[in-house]
């Protein structure tokens, strides 16, 4: 008699790969397409081994033409396939923004509901690995701005595996942001691994004194900050937004209505970004529950620098999150 382990420990990279593998095994309409996803195994090694298992028909290397292969993905989706298009980084996705915004996100609307685009686009986001300004930005806010898209930001191994299957079920385009610093992170995947929802935020750590609201690559930062704050007697709740469009206001507001203080942590730039949107909603919906101004920790407004010390200085850090939390609870002026 064998006992199944309850959890499997694996890296975020492996979890995403297993998610793709699982989807391709279950549905032959699913295929993967993007730069270097085949022979090279993916710019970040996510698709390593998939070409060997599924063949060139279903794991397709594309030319360096984001506009072209995202457009091809839209066409395949319209034709009944379930494409997963990988864009190496969100910076490169701007070349395909016309396809994503003007075509994928609008076709259902402009055809009066006759054509939907069941396309999944995965892209890497975020800094921290000295890849310089053209490979390091966090542009989730650009995409979360667009009606017609669903935008998700997995931060855990479980979501890295499980969000993809649910995204493929969605009749409309879904953009998945994978933070580059997460790929080597190990975590637990409950067994048997299963799809997860892409509708709701999750409380990753309970607390009473303030709410840290974050997503993706900044979740670890916030959990570490919450540990430090706990040592200082400050109980921080940590909310992982998970889905950036549509935002799950209910989970966020229920928490802030209880803790009365909120700090939003997002690696995007501060101006006109995700953190601005979340902070505005908290102010709109929880104003009379707030005991302190809504705080924000975001990236410094510069192109992400290459030198390590400057790059780290530009990004949200545990220290900055702790400082913002202390300001919110009145421990610092």
């Amino acid at each position: 008699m064998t006992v199944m382990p309850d959890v499997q420990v694996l890296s975020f990279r492996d979890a995403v790969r297993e998610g793709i593998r699982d989807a391709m095994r279950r549905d032959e309409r699913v295929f993967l397409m993007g730069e270097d996803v085949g022979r090279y195994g993916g710019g970040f090694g996510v698709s390593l081994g998939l070409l060997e298992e599924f063949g060139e028909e279903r794991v397709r290397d594309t030319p360096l033409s984001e506009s072209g292969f995202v457009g091809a993905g839209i066409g395949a989706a319209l034709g009944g396939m379930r494409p997963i298009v990988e864009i190496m980084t969100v910076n490169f996705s701007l070349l395909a923004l016309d396809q994503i915004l003007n075509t994928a996100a609008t076709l259902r609307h402009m055809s009066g509901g006759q054509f939907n685009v069941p396309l999944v686009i995965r892209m890497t986001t975020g800094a921290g690995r000295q890849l310089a300004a053209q490979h390091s930005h966090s542009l989730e806010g650009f995409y979360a701005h667009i009606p017609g898209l669903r935008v998700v930001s997995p931060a855990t191994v479980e979501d890295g595996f499980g969000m993809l299957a649910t995204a493929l079920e969605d009749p409309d385009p879904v953009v998945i942001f994978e933070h580059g610093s997460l790929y080597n992170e190990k975590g637990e995947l409950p067994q048997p691994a299963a799809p997860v929802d892409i509708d709701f935020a999750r409380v990753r750590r309970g607390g009473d004194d303030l709410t840290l609201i974050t997503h993706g690559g900044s979740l670890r930062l916030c959990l570490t900050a919450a540990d430090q704050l706990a040592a200082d007697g400050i109980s921080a709740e940590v909310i992982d937004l998970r889905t950036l469009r549509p935002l799950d206001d209910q989970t966020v507001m229920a928490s802030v209505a209880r803790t009365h203080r909120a700090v939003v942590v997002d690696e995007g730039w501060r101006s006109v970004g995700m953190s601005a949107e979340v902070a505005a909603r908290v102010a709109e919906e929880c104003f009379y529950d707030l005991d302190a101004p809504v705080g924000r920790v975001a990236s410094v407004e510069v192109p992400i620098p290459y030198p390590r010390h400057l790059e780290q200085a530009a990004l949200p850090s545990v220290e900055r999150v702790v400082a913002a939390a202390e300001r919110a609870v009145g421990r610092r002026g």
Partner: protein
Amino acid sequence: MGDFRMPSLGADMTEGTLLEWLVHPGDVVHRGDIIAVVDTSKSAIDVEVFEEGRVVELLVQPGTTVPVGAPLARLDGVGVATDEGGRGPQPEATPKPKPKPKPKPEETLTPAPSPVPPAKEAARRAPAAQQHRDGSHIAASPFARRRAQELGVDLSTVVGHGGVISVADVEAAAGSGPSEAPPESVPPAQPPSAPAASDHAAAMRQAIGALMARSKREIPHYYLQTTIDMSAALDWLSGLNAERTVAERVLPAALLLKAVAVSARGMPDMNGFFVDGNFRPQDHVHVGVAVSLRGGGLIAPALHDADLASLDDLMPRMKDLVQRARSGRLRSSEMSDPTLTVTNLGEQGAELVHGVIYPPQVSLVGFGRIVERPIAVQGMLAVRPLLVATLAADHRVSDGHRGGLFLAAIDAALQSPENLQGGTS
């Protein structure tokens, strides 16, 4: 000498919470001035005074809930007006024994300008205790302000840390200082807090339920309906709106309100109050506008003298009324004196509504959604925008024949929309 009492802001109101005083002892008040803000189970209402005079003393502290009719302040008046006699009935007023007079802490604050000119209205709507004694702004978090009100703490007596008052400072002040204890003159045994948002929704649902049950129990409703061809009205409106900016356009809803108001003028048995077994027709036509609130619930404040207003006057007033109803800033007179109500389901609604009369009114006109339908016109089949208008009316006051004439008058008014444009005041 007269008392300013907790007003009845609708037939369903039995008690109210004083949220805020906008006057101080010594202030001179004039008829129509907004002098207090009262929280009903429906929303926060700016309460007007109907007397001329000077405020002698404030009898009730903000945060206190008292029954309708209980004295809130004493006025030294010249020619005390007869309450809201002409402005809707005052049922179930159960005045409390007059509390023992005692000066309140806030009376010693900055001497208020007297009287406050209308232009200061926006400023006066801010929550209580916005200022220190020296007139400087009190920096307190929204949550701290809410708690201060719940606990009866005067924010001007609270010391904040880092220059800002947080809820911890308020609670510390409430737990210690004798100055924060509720004064003796506050009527006892009433919850001192304004209801929280969720309680508010539940209380509102309860209030609506109680009122509608009373309506269905007491009022022998009869219902009529008629289908109105809206071609003339819509054509005329689109001609009117074609030359206007979006902000200046007149919506069909305003035209419908005006048509009802003008028609009600000639129908005394549709426009008035049924109180204590007697019908009291009203000279003015104050049309209650049913507004659904975003968090759920319903409120039907009045557009005063809607029959006399021009469309260009009515349209912005309607928008303003709806907006204020939703933000919870209505005036007492708007709450208490609609003489009949219009419910308009609008573009998203159903095609037909059989309304429930809002006591003590005796009629309610309902409009469904305007829909294009085939219809026989002069022996030919035509497609026209049609509107089903319904009337729920009180059989104790009128019969179906009169109701039919009322609906026919509304129909006729809408066939000559140009006659509805102007005002007559």
